[in-house]
């Protein structure tokens, strides 16, 4: 078991004919993912990496029985691609695209709430269930199958923490990169709720960062609803207020909401130990 992605997940790649789309489709297939179709307007009938391309997601999903989508569409068109996935309908849409305008995501957010689709991202590395499949750009070689569920707002920080876990022999059930934007689909609470219900996830790691209050909400949720042990990490302790630290969502407001300390305190009050370094996070999980 795992969350979101398993051996049976059938994937359509939106934007498969672009450089990123093609490269990562090959990588996903190499990892053993069932990539069954691509969707690119005007490119129906072509084949990329051995995968048939359709003009619309609807056709791709129907013809190849796809239930998930990975989106590598450029920022200006990414919101439309997500709307198309919602309409298909696809159960899981993973938007990798970085740089989607926030106001576009506000419109998407309203539509996602009314749909049956789970959206992950945008601006995220994707979802991987080690040994089963990956939807996105995560490097498969650092992951090992196991029982630690990981949810993170950042790509390379995820890789760092995963390698610390893997080095200690702590494999992963599923790792979910939820993305660094201000408005995203799956939140920490959503992912943690899924991990809590997954019998094969025995421990959860959440890697948060400055900005917003998603970590604080997750802390309250964990306190009230989660029995699985959770370890935390929060990036951005040294970030000055008012400055965007790379991710569009990683900003401490002038009034001091969204600080690392507020998140660390909230997690602490919920009984979630927070590591000072990525290595310490793996140490905490090993001690669970």
């Amino acid at each position, binding site marked *: 078991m795992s969350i979101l992605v398993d051996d049976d997940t059938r994937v359509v790649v939106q934007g498969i004919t672009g450089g990123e789309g093609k490269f990562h489709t090959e990588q996903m297939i190499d990892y053993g993912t069932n990539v069954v179709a691509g969707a690119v307007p005007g490119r129906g009938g072509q084949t990329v990496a051995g995968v048939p391309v359709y003009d619309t997601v609807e056709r791709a999903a129907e013809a190849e029985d796809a239930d998930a989508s990975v989106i590598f569409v450029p920022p200006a068109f990414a919101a439309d691609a997500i709307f198309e996935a919602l309409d298909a309908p696809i159960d899981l849409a993973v938007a990798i695209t970085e740089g989607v*305008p926030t106001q576009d995501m506000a419109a998407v957010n309203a539509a996602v709430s009314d749909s049956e689709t789970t959206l992950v991202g945008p601006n995220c590395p994707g979802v991987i269930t080690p040994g089963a499949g990956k939807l996105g750009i995560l490097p498969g070689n650092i992951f090992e199958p196991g029982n630690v569920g990981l949810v993170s707002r950042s790509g390379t*920080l995820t890789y760092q923490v995963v390698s610390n876990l893997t080095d200690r022999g702590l494999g992963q059930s599923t790792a979910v990169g939820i993305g660094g934007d201000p408005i995203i689909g799956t939140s920490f609470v959503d992912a943690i709720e899924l991990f809590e219900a997954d019998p094969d996830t025995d421990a959860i790691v959440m890697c948060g960062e400055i900005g917003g209050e998603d970590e604080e909400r997750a802390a309250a949720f964990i306190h009230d609803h989660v029995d699985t042990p959770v370890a935390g990490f929060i990036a951005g302790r040294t970030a000055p207020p008012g400055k965007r*630290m790379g991710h569009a969502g990683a900003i401490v407001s002038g009034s001091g909401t969204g600080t690392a300390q507020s998140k660390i305190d909230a997690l602490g009050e919920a009984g979630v130990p927070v590591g000072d*370094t990525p290595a310490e996070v793996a140490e905490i999980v090993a001690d669970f």
Partner: protein
Amino acid sequence: MRLHEHQAKNVFAGAGVPIPDSALATTTEGVVDAAEEIGFPVAVKAQVHVGGRGKAGGIELVESPEEARAAADRILGMDLKGYTVETVLVEAAVEFVNELYVGITMDRDAGQPVLMVSTEGGVDIEAVAAETPEAIARVHVDPVAGLRPFQARQAVYRAGVPDDVASDVASVLSTLYELFDERDASEIEINPVMVTNDREVVAADAVMNVDDDALFRQAGLAELEAESYTNDLERKAGEYGFDYVRLDGNVGIIGNGAGLVMTTLDLVDYFGGAPANFLDIGGGAKAERVANALDVVFADDNVDSVVFNIFGGITRGDEVAEGINTALEQFEAIPKPVVVRLAGTNAEAGMEILNTDLVEVEATLEDAVERAVDNANEVSQ
């Protein structure tokens, strides 16, 4: 991207929001001339991206040419929280009877824009929000349907704006929402909106932040970007296409991915050092990008040592190592000691390739940061 006050005011005025008479100046003579043209009293206002400009001495009200000259001499060239003031806005001082606050921001947790109105303008609105949140009326707007006219009135009346100016303030708020929506703003604020003796409303300050991710479709605003940089290092990094933030420490940091770079900064602090900057080199790290990143960090006089932290996902460690070697070979002498840590795909091959005459190599993130902190301490002693 944050617009300067005068840039934001131009945008607001273009949409019909009343602003005071004003002119920009970069020299003392320019300030005096502008002040005489506008007529005293005027405010001389530093155009830098610093909160609390007034308290920090960046704004002065003057009533004569002599005072204007003295204020200009003092403010132009002054250091305001790390930023040098190069330009001031000379603006007619508005006599007012009320100061209001109006703002629109994206409520990220609700996923919707929110209108905010308060009769407690002219002060730090974030302090008001923290101490008396009920003093700020908030109305969320459905981003798909857009602002319904009644919502602007609702916010204004809920806030208790005086009846005789309520409709004018609601009209300003509606105009600001149109700008917010059409110009991909992430934040728009007027604090204060001044209500004059004649019951006119005037925008006495202006804040406008534009979503960086939407600049591709905001050509007119994107042109202002170069002007809105406030220091040379930020400008240089922006031109190279890096996400860069300058801090006040002495350990320079280059890494890939926002979360990992932030973590590297935090570890510098954890090991007793002080980070000089955030620099995300992004995906891939070919020689040119590496050289550009080093150019930015080496150009910072505060930097005493550098740590390079790359976790290769799809990026290959051997390619990064070659990039670092090539970039550093261009220097006759390495200006500041560089510690490199590579992890992930082909990291071991990369570590072997790295030229240890040019860089120090560490295997773990923690060791690399600790060594860079030690290097900085040695240099600064």
